[in-house]
């Protein structure tokens, strides 16, 4: 049939092209789709289901072939290994690893409970729930955003609105710090940039800077956004620098714009761009913007459709202009078993912490891809 053969052609074209545009690519099919990918060590990630009923949380070991480097040819091992697994009674919308521990925390995207889990060690492969933090939060059915503390004892920063942002110690459940403001705006993203300085991005695009050492200090930078537009944020920290303010913040809007700001001067954005994206989904839930940890001026965007786009911000300007991506990963839209590609949507993506161009992405059909793209131009990316 005509339709099938044109689909096949499109797939074949992409397949041939993939030989040149990727160094490596691995594609996996989970039983249930995930909207979280969280690094738990240099070689392991956690994924979890988000159906309304019972879900699995899995800790996966990346294939050995990816790390073989010199001897890659002699290593045939291409599969994920499920090293630990557990069951969650509810959906998992958010999953964060607490650095320096074998502990992760999750939230279901509706309630204000944060579940605490022990991933387990060598002697047992079951992920067990060790506790629940019942958080006092302003009414919201959008769940809680979580940012793990970077140093010190295990603690998490969390909130559903700007007004209820709080830092809680995991072991005791006691709050260390509260923002103490009555700004009711819904929270979209939350992240620490240093041991005590954190950024909070509201759904309307406003950016707030807080310091857990100074409870009432809060800096606000509104986004130049229209009403009704949803925003999220990605933060690039230079952890080698002792100055917490040397970090870039990218804010992504649901109208496919990215605004890049520097923490040292939040008054005006450093640059911005209109992305080359045709939105395929009206859901803002999966919007995601991240900076490449091991490359300069390189960010990845996903959540509007079945693609992950990589942009080089070095050529961006303070005025809004359209820019083309440096690289586009189309793998999630290329299915060789008649999956309807128009409904493919990427739910999340993450960069490998040290390998410069390695990215992991997941989509609504349960696919998880690990890909290493080839840099063509000689830009700083």
């Amino acid at each position: 049939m005509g339709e099938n053969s044109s689909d096949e052609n499109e797939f074949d074209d992409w397949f041939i092209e993939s030989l040149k545009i990727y160094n490596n690519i691995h594609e996996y099919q989970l039983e249930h789709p995930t909207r979280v990918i969280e690094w738990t060590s240099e070689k392991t990630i956690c994924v979890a289901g988000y159906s309304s009923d019972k879900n699995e949380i899995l800790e996966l070991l990346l294939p050995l072939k990816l790390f073989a480097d010199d001897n890659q040819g002699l290593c045939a091992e291409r599969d994920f290994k499920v090293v630990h697994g557990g069951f969650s009674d509810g959906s998992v919308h958010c999953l964060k690893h607490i650095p320096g521990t074998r502990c992760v925390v999750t939230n279901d995207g509706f309630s204000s409970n944060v579940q605490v889990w022990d991933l387990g060690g060598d002697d047992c492969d079951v992920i067990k729930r060790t506790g629940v933090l019942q958080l006092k939060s302003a009414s919201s059915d959008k769940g809680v955003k979580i940012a793990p503390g970077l140093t010190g004892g295990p603690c998490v920063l969390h909130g559903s609105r700007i007004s209820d942002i709080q830092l809680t110690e995991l072991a005791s459940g006691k709050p260390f710090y509260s923002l103490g403001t009555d700004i009711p705006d819904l929270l979209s993203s939350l992240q620490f940039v240093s041991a005590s300085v954190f950024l909070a991005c509201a759904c309307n695009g406003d950016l707030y800077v807080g310091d857990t050492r100074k409870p009432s200090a809060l800096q606000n930078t509104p986004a130049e956004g229209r009403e009704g537009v949803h925003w999220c944020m990605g933060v690039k920290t230079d952890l080698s620098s002792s100055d917490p303010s040397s970090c870039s913040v990218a804010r992504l809007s649901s109208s496919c714009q990215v605004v890049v700001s520097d923490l040292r001067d939040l008054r005006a954005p450093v640059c911005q761009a209109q992305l080359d994206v045709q939105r395929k989904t009206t859901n803002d839930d999966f919007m995601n913007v991240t900076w490449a940890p091991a490359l300069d001026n390189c960010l990845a965007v996903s959540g509007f459709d079945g693609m992950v786009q990589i942009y080089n911000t070095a050529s961006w300007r303070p005025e809004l202009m359209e820019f083309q991506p440096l690289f586009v990963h189309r793998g999630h839209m290329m299915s060789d078993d008649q999956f309807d590609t128009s409904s493919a949507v990427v739910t999340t993506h993450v960069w490998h912490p040290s390998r410069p161009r390695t990215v992991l992405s997941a989509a609504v059909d349960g696919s998880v891809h690990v890909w290493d793209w080839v840099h063509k131009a000689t830009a700083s990316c």
Partner: protein
Amino acid sequence: MPEIKVTPLGAGQDVGRSCILVSIGGKNVMLDCGMHMGFNDDRRFPDFSYITQQGRLTEFLDCVIISHFHLDHCGALPYMSEMVGYDGPIYMTHPTKAICPILLEDFRKITVDKKGETNFFTSQMIKDCMKKVVPLNLHQTVQVDDELEIKAYYAGHVLGAAMVQIKVGSESVVYTGDYNMTPDRHLGAAWIDKCRPDILISESTYATTIRDSKRCRERDFLKKVHETVERGGKVLIPVFALGRAQELCILLETFWERMNMKAPIYFSTGLTEKANHYYKLFITWTNQKIRKTFVQRNMFEFKHIKAFDRSYADNPGPMVVFATPGMLHAGQSLQIFKKWAGNEKNMIIMPGYCVQGTIGHKILNGQKKLEMENRQTLEVKLQVEYMSFSAHADAKGIMQLIRMAEPRNMLLVHGEAKKMEFLKDKIEQEFSINCFMPANGETTTVITNPSVPVDISLNLLKREMALGGPLPDPKKPRTMHGTLIMKDNSLRLVSPEQALKELGLNEHQLRFTCRVQLQDSHSDSDTLIRIYTHLKSLLKGYTIQHLPDGTVMVESIVIKVSSSAEEPNTKVLLLSWSYQDEDLGSFLSTLLKKGLPSGLSSI
């Protein structure tokens, strides 16, 4: 209780050879008889001492079943049948029967001729062993004897691989061997019906993995071939005659034109003939797509793939060559390898496992200098790529198979229990069945609950229906009375009266008599009346009669009083009852032994 016992032979945690013993309904079956490729001594063979300490295995085993031709599933078969001793039937599919002896002979040559081992089976032993083979067709029930039957199902994985159902009466076990749930270019996916076996036995090796897609593996293969050819290098792909070779050829053929490749692709002639021959014989085992192409044209009439001549190996310029044998231990692939190994522009792609002792094995372990037969050293400068194309089911696949077969219990072999607790929990939760994970050498006993079908007579059924009440269903069984007649091969449930009639028997009546002594100064008849009154007051709700013939009747129990002339105060009570009233009768005799209360009125 009826039970099925499963024991994976082997020791400790070693994975790498399959040999499982199943005891079901009084029958003993051996599933697979693999060789452990990692050992050079007797540890490579399964430990048959579990079956018997010494002597032949024939009387201890009802049959042996081999799932497919991979050496870790059939490598120890000639050793078992000819050196330990087994003369019973060995079951395997037709393709397995054709391919096994070739692989076994190859393997034997490498081990004995190249490595100089002595405690190994001979060529004649392989032939003698194969004479005991009874071939199986898919979905065909085979009676091993009048109680044991087996049936093979399509497993995918490699040509001829089967999953096997073993059945005795209403108890059954399904063994998967190696299988895959996603079809590939030349094999379909495993399939089984909802046969609901008591136990589904499977490997756990891949149960905790999530497999990289086939297209990514293929992409890697194409990319490596393409890169080598672009830089002017030559690619050698050593293959066995069947299976992967066809798959990779189809892949190259499909994309060569699209990729604008001009370099020639060759297929050594030995391969072509053999492969053609086998594919014609076993066409039903490949998937739908291939079957169609084969019918339309010859398997190896590829546009871009030509027959190889050994003089071509010296031609300049890039090329791709598929040649046998697969492990580089002899023949054409080794000859070509010797010519090409010294050039770093060239590449060798090993698409499968290589046995220890072969050159293939050595270069896959990174060896750069090889000592050849004539004491000459060969430097390995070409790029070595190890690619695994074997099709295995993963964590998702196991769940799919369980959903298909609906077993009552799951059993996973060759895994470490503490590394599979999550999988066990998952299976137990999703399907509400037990999941067992025995260590090698450990026996798992699974209690089965076989249903025994029985015919019920119409009269008995009507009688039960007339009693009213809810209709029986599997969740609410009803107790009923009847007689089970087992005659010849039929089981019938009939009423006791009918059973007696059929058997020409009369129903016996059982009566008990008991004598109780009482001291009582009244007359016999007065004592009787006193007894009557006593019982009447105690046993309310029972029919108690004082009859004119001088007896008291409690239900059907008869009580008489008598005494001797010499001792008129010693009354002897005679109690008599039928078997149906045994309980009441015993109760009365115990009661009356206690004597009569003094305050009883006589009249």
